[in-house]
C-alpha cells in the first residue's frame, strides 16, 4: 500500500488576518505557520494508522510551496511520513496546485491519495476533486471514517443531516475531516528520525491558473452586543422577533 498525503501550509488558527499591497496580499508579518489541521489531524494521522496496521505501507507527503514550507514538512515527517516531495513553486490557485500534485502522482503508483477536507485559509475544498479528475480516479469527499479491506476501501462520508457508507476500489482520492482519526503530537523519536528522512524539492510543471485574487476585504465590524437582563428573557425573545426579525 502506497499513500500520498497532500500537505498545505496555513496560518495558525489564531493568526491575525490582515492584508497588504492595497489589500491584494495576505500580511504574513508575525504569522505562525502550521500544517493545515485537516491535512495533519485527519488525513496524515489516518495514513500513519494504516501503516501501523500494515508495516509494508509507504507514506509519501507532497506540498506545493517555497522553501519556507520545509519546517512544516519536517513536522509532518516527524509525525510519521516516510518521505516528502516539495514542488518548488508559489501557489497560484487550486487548479495550479492540484495540477502539480497530479503530476507528482503520475510519476509513482499510489493506491490512495488523501487530502484534508479544505484548507483553513482559502477554504476551497477543491484540491482532492481536481486531483481525482486530472488522474481520472474516483473521489470520496468529506470522509468521516476510512477502513481498508484489501484493494477496496469502505468510507463513511458526510451528507446533509447524516452520513452514508460507500465502497470504492483503489486507487482513489479521499478528502478527510473530523472522525477519520484523532490529532497526534510528534514524539522525540519521530522528530529525530524526520531530520534524515528524504525531503525532495522538484520543479513545477507549467500550468496556467484558472483564477486570480483581485483583492481581499475584512468583514464589517459588529455594532456591539445588546445585553438583556437574565430576569427579562421575554425581552430578548421580543427583540429577536420584532427588531432582528429572525424568529
Amino acid at each position, binding site marked *: 500500500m502506497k499513500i500520498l498525503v497532500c500537505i498545505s501550509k496555513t*496560518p495558525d*488558527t489564531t493568526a491575525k*488576518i490582515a*492584508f497588504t499591497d492595497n489589500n491584494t496580499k495576505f500580511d504574513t508579518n508575525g504569522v505562525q505557520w502550521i500544517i493545515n489541521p485537516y491535512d495533519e489531524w485527519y488525513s496524515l494521522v489516518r495514513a500513519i494508522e494504516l501503516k501501523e496496521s500494515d508495516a509494508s505501507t509507504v507514506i509519501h507527503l507532497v506540498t506545493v510551496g517555497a522553501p519556507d514550507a520545509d519546517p512544516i514538512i519536517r513536522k509532518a515527517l516527524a509525525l510519521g511520513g516516510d518521505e516528502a516531495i516539495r514542488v518548488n513553486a508559489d501557489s497560484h*490557485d*487550486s*487548479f495550479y496546485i*492540484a495540477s502539480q500534485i497530479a503530476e507528482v502522482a503520475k510519476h509513482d503508483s499510489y493506491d490512495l491519495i488523501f487530502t484534508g*477536507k479544505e484548507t483553513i485559509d*482559502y*477554504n*476551497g*475544498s*477543491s484540491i*482532492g*476533486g*481536481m486531483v*481525482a*479528475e*486530472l488522474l481520472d480516479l*474516483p*473521489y*470520496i*469527499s*468529506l470522509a*468521516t471514517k476510512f477502513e481498508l479491506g484489501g484493494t477496496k476501501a*469502505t468510507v463513511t462520508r*458526510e451528507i*446533509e*443531516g*447524516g452520513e*452514508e*457508507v*460507500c*465502497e*470504492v476500489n483503489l486507487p482513489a482520492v479521499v478528502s478527510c475531516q*473530523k*472522525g477519520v482519526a484523532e490529532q497526534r503530537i510528534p514524539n522525540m523519536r519521530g522528530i529525530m528520525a524526520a531530520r534524515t528522512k528524504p525531503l525532495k524539492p522538484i520543479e513545477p510543471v507549467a500550468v496556467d491558473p*484558472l*483564477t486570480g*485574487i*483581485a*483583492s*481581499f*476585504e475584512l*468583514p464589517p465590524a*459588529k*455594532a456591539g*452586543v*445588546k*445585553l438583556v437582563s*437574565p430576569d427579562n*428573557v*421575554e425581552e*430578548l*425573545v421580543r*427583540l429577536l422577533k420584532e427588531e*432582528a426579525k*429572525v*424568529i
Partner: protein
Amino acid sequence: MSVLIFIDTAEGHVKKASFEAMTYGVKVAEQLGTTAEGIVLGTTKDDLAALGKYGVKKIHHVNKPALDHLDAQSYTKAITDVAGKTGAKVIVFSNNVDGKAIAPRLSARLKAGLVSGAVALPDTSKGFVVKKNVFSGKAFANISLNTDVKIIALNPNAYQTIVGEGAAEVIATDIAVDAPKVKVTAVNKVNGEVPLTEAEIVVSAGRGLKGPENWGMVEDLAKVLHAATACSRPVADAHWRPHNEHVGQTGTAIAPTLYIAIGISGAIQHLAGVNRSKVIVVINKDPEAPFFKAADYGIVGDAFEVVPKMTEAIKKIKA
C-alpha cells in the same frame, strides 16, 4: 449561451440549498442577458416543472437510477455532457456536500475557473469577479475568473431564495451514464432532524452545560425554534455530543440567520465557524466571555435558568 444550475436532490427531493442556487443562477443569467437552465441527475419524486417558480426556464433531467447516489466522477461526466449541449458559460452549484465533490472535478475537466464558497453575485463591471469567504469566515476574497466557462459554488444560506410564478420545461435528457465507481451501501440519516448546514436557526452549547445529561433543555429550545443543534469542539471531543454537531474552524462552518450560543466562551476557532451567522445570541454566565464581542444580543446569566425561560417565552409567542 446559458447559465446552468446543478439542482441537487436527496432521496428524490430537491435540497433547500438548490433553491438558493437557482435564485442566484437566475440573477447571474439576468446580468449576462441570458436564460437559466437546471440539471437534475437521477430519479426524483418532486414535480420538476414546478421549479420554474425559481426562474429557471428549462430543466434537463437525466432520469437514470445509476445517478441516484453521488458519484463525483459519473456526475461530472453527465454535467459536462449537458453543459456542452446547452452551451453553458456559467455553471452554478451550491457549495454543499455534493457541490464540494463535483464542482472541483468539473473545473479541472473543463479548465473552467471555480469560485467555491461564493457569497455574492458576480461583479461584471471589470471582468468577472466573485466574492467568497476565506480564512474560515474571517475575511473575503474577490476572485477573478478569466476562463471562457466559469463555475460558481454558492455558500448555503448566503443568498436569499426568491419564489415567483412559472413552470419550467422539463427535458428528458438521454445521455450515456457511467456506472458509479463509488457505491453507496448504507444511508444513516437522522429522520426529522434539521441538517446543520441548511438550518435557518442553530442552537449550540458548550462546556458551560457541564455534562451531556443537560442537553435536554438545548434540544427543547431547538425544537420550539425548528432549529438544528450544534456544539463546541471540547464538547464533541469529550463525546458529550456526536462529532457532526461540532461547529467551528475544524468542524462544520455554518451561516444560519440566527445562532444561539449557550455556555460557549467563543474561542477564535469557534467564531471562525459561526461568524457568518446573521444574528448571534450569546448566553453565558461569564461577562468576560469573548463571544459577547461577536454577538448581537446577549444575556449574562445562568444557562440553566435562562434557556428554559427562553423556550417558554418562544412557545408563548408562537402559540
